[in-house]
C-alpha cells in the first residue's frame, strides 16, 4: 500500500543499520524507550533489534491502552455488563483482558451478558439508535488517538437526544505517563532503566503535536524523536536519537513529518477539550495513581457519563502477584523475566494485560521475538 511499502525496504533498513553502527560510540550504552505499543509491535515484527549493535537497546514503554488499564476498571465494566438492561460495546482487544478471579468480558459474554465488539464509536451510536429499549454503554479506553472519536460520539448522542447512550470513560494521556517514568524510574526498590531518550508516538503525536514533548527535552534533558510506525521510520529515529546523544543535545525532533505537525490536529484537540476534563488522578497498571493523567466527561455532558448514570462504585483490585506486567510496562523488566511468560500466560490464555493486545510487550515477544532469543543467547 502506498506510504507503507516504501518504508519497509529491507535494503535501506540494512544501510541505515550500518549508519547506526558507525554512529554508535562502542564505549557507551544507549537505552531508548519506545513509548508506544505500535512501535513495540513494529520492532518485534520486523526484528529491528537484530539490526542494532549490542550497545543500542530498546526499552518497551507503557503506550498500550489495553495494557495500562488496571484490573479494577475491567471489574467495573464486567459488573456493569451484568446489569440486565445494559449492552456494553467495546473494542475487540478488551474482550480477553483478565479481570479479578479469572473473569473477562469474553467470559461474562459467554455467561449471558450483552457485550458487543465494535470497530468504531459510531457503531455503538448506531446500536443505541436501533435498540432504544437497551442502555448502550461504550467502554472507552485509549490514549489521545481514541479520545477524539469518543468525543464526537458523545456530541452526536447529545445532538440526536439519545437517552440510552453513555460512555464508561477510561481515556488516558501520554505526557503524564512519560513524566511518571522520568520522575520515578524505580519500582518497589527495583532500579529502572537509565533512559537516554524516547521514540515519541506516531498517531498520538498526529493528534497532540510534537510540541507536546518539549517539556521532556527541556526539564529532563532527554531527546525525543517522534517516529512513524514503519520499520524505516523507527530505524531513522534511532539514528537521530544516537546523534543527539553523541552531540549532547536534547531536542524534540520529528521523523514523521508526513503526518505530524508541531501543533497536531487542532480540530481533534478542540473536540476533546469540549467534551472532556482532567481527572485529579487516574490509576494505571504498573504506575498506581498518576496525577492529571486521565479524562472524564465534563459537567455539560454528565448525562452521557456511565459512571454517574449507573452510580458505578470504584473498584480497586490487585494484579496477579506472579504477573510482571507492571514492571514490564515501566521498562524495568522484560517479558522473559516473568515466570508466567509462555507457560501459564500465552495470547490464548493471557494472565496479564501485556499478553492480550498485539501492541503489548509480552504478546509482541511471544509472536515474533522469542524465536530470536536462542540465537541471541548463543552470541552472548
Amino acid at each position, binding site marked *: 500500500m502506498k506510504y507503507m511499502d516504501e518504508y519497509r525496504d529491507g535494503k535501506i533498513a540494512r544501510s541505515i543499520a550500518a549508519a547506526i553502527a*558507525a554512529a554508535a560510540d562502542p564505549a557507551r550504552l544507549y537505552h531508548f524507550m519506545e513509548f508506544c505499543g505500535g512501535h513495540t509491535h513494529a520492532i518485534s515484527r520486523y526484528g529491528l533489534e537484530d539490526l542494532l549493535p549490542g550497545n543500542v537497546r530498546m526499552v518497551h514503554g507503557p503506550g498500550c491502552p489495553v495494557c495500562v488499564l488496571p484490573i479494577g476498571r475491567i471489574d467495573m465494566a464486567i459488573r456493569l455488563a451484568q446489569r440486565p438492561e445494559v449492552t456494553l460495546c467495546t473494542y475487540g482487544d478488551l474482550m480477553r483482558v483478565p479481570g479479578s478471579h479469572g473473569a473477562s468480558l469474553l467470559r461474562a459474554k459467554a455467561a449471558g451478558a450483552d457485550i458487543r465488539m465494535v470497530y468504531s464509536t459510531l457503531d455503538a451510536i448506531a446500536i443505541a439508535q436501533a435498540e432504544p429499549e437497551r442502555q448502550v454503554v461504550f467502554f472507552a479506553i485509549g490514549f489521545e488517538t481514541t479520545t477524539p472519536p469518543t468525543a464526537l460520539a458523545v456530541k452526536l448522542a447529545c445532538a440526536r437526544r439519545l437517552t440510552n447512550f453513555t460512555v464508561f470513560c477510561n481515556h488516558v494521556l501520554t505526557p503524564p505517563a512519560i513524566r511518571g517514568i522520568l520522575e520515578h524510574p524505580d519500582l518497589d526498590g527495583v532500579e529502572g532503566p537509565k533512559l537516554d531518550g524516547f521514540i515519541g508516538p506516531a498517531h498520538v503525536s498526529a493528534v497532540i503535536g510534537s510540541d507536546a514533548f518539549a517539556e521532556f527535552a527541556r526539564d529532563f534533558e532527554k531527546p525525543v524523536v517522534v517516529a512513524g510506525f514503519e520499520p524505516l521510520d523507527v530505524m531513522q529515529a534511532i539514528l537521530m536519537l544516537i546523534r543527539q546523544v553523541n552531540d549532547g543535545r536534547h531536542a524534540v525532533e520529528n521523523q514523521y513529518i508526513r503526518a505530524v505537525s508541531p501543533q497536531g490536529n487542532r480540530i481533534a484537540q478542540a473536540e476533546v477539550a469540549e467534551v472532556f476534563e482532567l481527572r485529579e488522578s487516574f490509576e494505571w497498571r504498573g504506575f498506581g495513581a498518576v496525577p492529571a493523567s486521565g479524562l472524564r466527561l465534563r459537567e455539560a455532558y454528565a448525562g452521557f457519563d456511565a459512571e454517574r448514570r449507573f452510580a458505578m462504585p470504584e473498584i480497586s483490585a490487585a494484579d496477579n502477584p506472579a504477573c510482571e506486567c507492571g514492571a514490564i510496562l515501566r521498562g524495568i523488566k522484560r517479558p522473559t523475566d516473568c515466570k508466567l511468560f509462555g507457560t501459564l500466560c500465552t495470547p490464548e490464555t493471557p494472565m496479564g494485560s501485556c499478553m492480550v493486545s498485539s501492541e503489548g510487550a509480552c504478546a509482541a515477544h511471544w509472536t515474533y521475538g522469542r524465536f530470536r532469543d536462542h540465537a541471541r543467547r548463543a552470541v552472548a
Partner: protein
Amino acid sequence: MIELLPDQMARVSLDGVIKVVSVALVAPITVGDYVIVHVGFALTRIDPEEAQRTLALLAEMGQIATEAAP
C-alpha cells in the same frame, strides 16, 4: 479517500478494501487524499511532499552508509 459522503463520512480504500469512515477530524478533505484511519476515524492527512522528503532522506542515509562501509 475515494468518495465524500454526507454527515462528514467518506469512503476510503485500504489497499482495495473499502470502508466508510468519519472525516470529521480532518476537514477539509478532497478525493485522492491519503489519511491515517484509526478506529473508524481519519486522524490526519498524509502530506505527500513531506513523505517524499522522508523517502529521499532515507535513501540518502542508506547511500552514505554504503559508501562509508569498507
